[in-house]
């Protein structure tokens, strides 16, 4: 079976506007879902969960969130780390204040709280654009980290200043705390990522997504066709914040278990997620997945090749890893400034005519 666009003709408008208009894509999507939900949980081990899959799933949620704001609505943000911290601390406070409520709700509500906070920090976007907005969100990043360090109420006055995730269960299975099984961590993150991916895709193909893209491409023209810039921009901040908050909550409660805010949610986290969406592709949900996978896998891959394959010293490899990852990012962006998603689109266009060049 060839991968082709030709031969698939839509006969109705809903069929034409679906997420995967090509049959082959659709089947592959179902296949990925089946593998992710029904096969991987049974073969996953601790190493795969902690080193690769769980961080990938969580970062993909954050990347989807940031991509909505930066890639779709064109509002640059450097506050992702701080916003993830809001999600983490909101989740911590909820988990300790309402121990009887399911953690699923806690995570969702943490997303909601983060959405409100991010919207607040999005208010300057109505006046300033581009680099200046980036600086404003940078201020949010430093302010939030400072806040969670200074105000003891946020970490329940613990002596270390850290927050620790208590044990919580979903359907009787432990999902947080040190004794959690690899598959349970993986599953809860996967459920939220699937939810985030579907919602993000639906929002960006509908009328809200068009409003965002219109604001991104030319705000004056967007206004003249009746888009209220205030509500369009703030809704992008809110929804972006919702997903980033969920990813922050998962990052703390499921992945790390114990968090010191400056370390886990510092400025480097903001840049990491920003790199993910730039490398993956701005304005593309698929790009968010690809970018997260790239940035999570690359260091692991390099470590395996350098230490395992070439027998280098671990410390030397760890330092060189930074250099190599950085260089690869630069090379990649020179070769394909629009990211992995664009690479995929180009390949698809080539395939449409393959094997005949004209």
């Amino acid at each position, binding site marked *: 079976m060839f991968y082709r666009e030709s031969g698939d003709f839509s006969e109705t408008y809903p069929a034409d506007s679906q997420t995967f208009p090509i049959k082959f894509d659709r089947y592959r999507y179902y296949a990925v879902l089946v593998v992710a939900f029904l096969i991987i949980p049974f073969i996953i081990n601790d190493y795969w969960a902690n080193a690769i899959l769980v961080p990938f799933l969580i970062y993909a949620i954050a990347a989807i969130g940031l991509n909505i704001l930066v890639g779709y609505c064109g509002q640059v943000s450097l506050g992702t780390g701080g916003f993830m911290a809001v999600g983490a601390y909101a989740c911590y406070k909820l988990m300790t204040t309402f121990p009887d409520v399911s953690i699923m709700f806690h995570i969702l509500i943490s997303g909601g709280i983060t959405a409100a906070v991010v919207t607040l920090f999005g208010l300057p976007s109505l006046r300033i654009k581009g680099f200046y907005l980036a600086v404003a969100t940078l201020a949010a990043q430093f302010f939030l980290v400072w806040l969670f360090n200074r105000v003891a109420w946020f970490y329940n006055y613990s002596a270390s200043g850290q927050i620790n995730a208590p044990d919580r269960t979903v359907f009787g299975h432990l999902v947080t705390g040190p004794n959690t099984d690899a598959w349970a961590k993986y599953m809860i993150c996967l459920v939220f990522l699937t939810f985030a991916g579907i919602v993000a895709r639906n929002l960006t193909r509908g009328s809200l997504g068009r409003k965002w893209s219109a604001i991104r491409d030319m705000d004056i*023209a967007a206004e003249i066709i*009746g888009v209220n810039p205030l509500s369009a921009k703030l809704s992008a901040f809110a929804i972006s914040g919702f997903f980033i908050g969920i990813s922050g909550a998962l990052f703390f409660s499921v992945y790390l278990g114990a968090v010191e805010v400056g370390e886990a949610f510092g400025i480097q986290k903001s840049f990491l997620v920003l790199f993910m969406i730039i490398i993956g592709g701005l304005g593309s949900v698929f790009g968010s997945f690809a970018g997260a996978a790239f940035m999570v896998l690359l260091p692991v891959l390099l470590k395996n090749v350098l230490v395992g394959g070439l027998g280098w010293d671990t410390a030397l490899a760890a330092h060189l890893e930074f250099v190599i990852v950085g260089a690869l990012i630069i090379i990649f962006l020179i070769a394909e400034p629009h990211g992995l998603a664009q690479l995929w689109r180009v390949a698809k266009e080539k395939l449409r005519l393959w094997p005949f060049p004209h």
Partner: protein
Amino acid sequence: MFDQPESFVTSDGRTIGGVMMEMKNITLRFGGVVAIQDISFDIREGEIRAIIGPNGAGKSSMLNVISGFYNPQEGEVWYKGERRPSMKPFEVARQGIARTFQNIALFEGMSVLDNVMTGRLNHMKAGILSQAFWYGSAQREETENREVVERVLDFLEIQHIRKTPVSRLPYGLKKRVELARALAADPKILLLDEPMAGMNVEEKEDMSRFILDVNDEFGTTIALIEHDMSVVMDISDRVVVMDYGKKIGDGTPKDVRSNQAVIDAYLGVAHD
């Protein structure tokens, strides 16, 4: 011949309705510069109204006043028999006034279809939950509005490029897509800022035909700015002539052509 308040039929058989929009003594200043000085005119339902004048006459400023980008220091804008308070451009758009720009203002990152679909945004009301799960009203709305958009695409003969990113299109087609986007909004008044600027003769003919067809088929009232005199004289019902921010003529193309002030402005006499 245009003093009658109610609708009437012109000599070439076109029906013109009552006054849709009226500009009363508009004055617009930028600091010390007076861009528009005490101008009044009206736009009647169903007509094609042209605003002409030499460079810097204040035509585009006038259009920007109508579409809400500028708020005049003096004067009133009346729309559908009511005085319009000062408004933001998106509020004006929601009242049924759509426009195109002199320098194309399309969304370059989106396909032709998505660009034209943005014209329907004011007609889409589905809630965020419905959109998030692509269920119920969001899906229904998408299909309904897609049908409207497809009719517009068909009308302007750009169906074949509906999935093409706008950034790949040649200039003439971009102008047509911009017209499509404005038209998709189903406007009461359509403002066109130099719809034929930079076009060759063939493209101009196409565009003139589309403007006349839009007016004819949908009954859309059109106000346009244009430099090409022969086009203006051919397609418009009434013409306002501006020079240095002042109105120097107003009437049918025939009246305007024989107006001495207009001839002076265009052929040039010494201003004292």
